[in-house]
């Protein structure tokens, strides 16, 4: 019997929503880690019962949680203490320390600050966790201030892939309004050495050697809010997505503009087409149709809500440019929520399910690829992220 498990991160805890393959009756579990900000929860493709959650707080910092039973119980991985004579005890979990060793080349210590001066890199939180496609103990973490970490022991210890910050453009990166965060990590299912990441406000980057070296992949992006609109870095990329059957085709929701690349990010072209506004945060791809993509247009960077108070998902079946509004079941008046960058996902059941969460606490499901929508839950805390596991 197939089923789905929806992992929801919110401002005040995590929720696990489960249903069978019909996706009609839902069981809601949570809040887990009540009162904490849960930026992201994601399951391992290699072991669906292995989940990882990013738990953070302005008071108490970053905690990583792990579940080995599909979210029923959780633990802080590690927990062991190393004690050397004369030294302070050191717990190993939750520790994200930027690599400043000379062995990695030229680890950066500063980036551009709001006032144009250079500012030290300071760890704030984990925005996104991306488990390996093949190993449940290996997970990548995208963090603020922008950096990429990896664990290969199930979250017990984390090491920075410092080549990303060290590749040369790092001093030009600067924070967007939400902070300088690495929020998107795409693993190429056809090439274990290739990975894409996206950073606000720096742009998209790619490695072809498993994270050792990186290059910016922003050619074709045009951003009026930076001094050189065509600059190599500085673009506020909100989200990128790919279909596993065609990993060289990338789709991007930039601050403004919906973009497409057919060469793994080497060049981009705009596919905003007839969207009512091309500002937004989420973008995702249908599980079975690599040219069917979804966005949620948001009015503007000054007004983070849907145009005209109408919550509409837009679908393109042509890989961009031609878009149709999907409104059935979604509020078409007085709706002023936002849909944040990690808050859309798809399942891979035969009739592809599309899910998204709002800052108003609703999680919507379409069990017919977007034709109609229904809320699974209506009154959660503001939703930060939505991920879906298809269970078989």
């Amino acid at each position: 019997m197939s089923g789905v498990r929806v992992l929801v991160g919110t401002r005040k805890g995590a929720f696990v929503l489960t249903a069978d393959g019909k996706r009609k009756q839902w069981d809601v579990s949570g809040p887990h880690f009540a009162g904490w900000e849960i930026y992201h929860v994601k399951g391992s493709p290699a072991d669906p019962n292995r989940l990882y959650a990013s738990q953070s707080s302005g008071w108490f910092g970053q905690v990583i949680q792990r579940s080995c039973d599909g979210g029923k119980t959780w633990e802080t991985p590690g927990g062991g203490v190393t004690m050397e004579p004369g030294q302070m005890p050191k717990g190993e979990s939750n520790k994200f320390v930027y690599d400043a060793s000379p062995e990695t080349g030229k680890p950066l210590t500063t980036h551009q600050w709001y006032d144009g001066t250079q500012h030290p890199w300071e760890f704030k939180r984990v925005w996104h966790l991306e488990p390996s496609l093949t190993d449940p103990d290996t997970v990548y973490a995208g963090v603020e201030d922008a950096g990429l970490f990896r664990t290969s022991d199930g979250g017990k210890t984390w090491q920075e892939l410092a080549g990303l910050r060290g590749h040369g453009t790092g001093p030009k990166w600067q924070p967007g309004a939400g902070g300088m965060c690495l929020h998107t990590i795409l693993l190429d299912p056809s090439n274990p050495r290739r990975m894409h990441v996206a950073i606000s406000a720096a742009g998209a980057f790619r490695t072809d050697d498993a994270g050792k070296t990186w290059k910016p992949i922003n050619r074709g992006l045009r951003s009026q809010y930076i001094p050189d609109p065509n600059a190599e870095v500085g673009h506020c990329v909100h989200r990128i997505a790919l279909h596993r059957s065609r990993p060289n085709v990338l789709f991007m929701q930039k601050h403004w503009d919906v973009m497409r690349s057919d060469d793994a990010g080497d060049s981009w072209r705009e596919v905003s087409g007839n969207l009512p506004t091309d500002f937004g945060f989420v973008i995702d791809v249908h599980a079975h149709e690599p040219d069917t993509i979804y966005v949620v247009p948001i009015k503007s960077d000054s007004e983070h809500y849907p145009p005209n108070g109408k919550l509409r998902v837009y679908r393109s079946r042509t890989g961009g440019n031609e878009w149709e509004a999907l409104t059935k079941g979604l509020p078409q008046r007085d709706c002023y929520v936002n849909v944040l960058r990690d808050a859309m996902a798809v399942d891979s059941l035969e009739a592809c399910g599309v899910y998204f969460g709002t800052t108003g606490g609703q999680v919507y499901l379409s069990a017919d690829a977007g034709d109609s929508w229904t809320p699974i839950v209506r009154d959660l805390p503001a939703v930060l992220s939505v991920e879906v596991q298809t269970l078989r």
Partner: protein
Amino acid sequence: MIRVVLPYHLRRLAHVDAEVALDLDGPVTQRAVLDALEARYPMLCGTIRDHVTQQRRPFLRFFACERDLSHEPPDAPLPDAVSSGAEPLLVIGAIAGG
């Protein structure tokens, strides 16, 4: 025996109730208490003081005996009443109002 009172979220993270009791050898200081606390509850590492700098996190305070000890040097002796276990060391989260 040293008594430490943690804020709600850290009690839940460490799976403890109310007060935590710690046995210390040597001088009773902020650093010694936090070292012992983290050794016993490693999930608290990084939540009260920074992993690397060991600085107190900005929105936390240390109170005891009706005094704010947050700005005391980490190796300064804590009040005798804390050392004797008569009074707890309170780890307090800043109030979020508004």
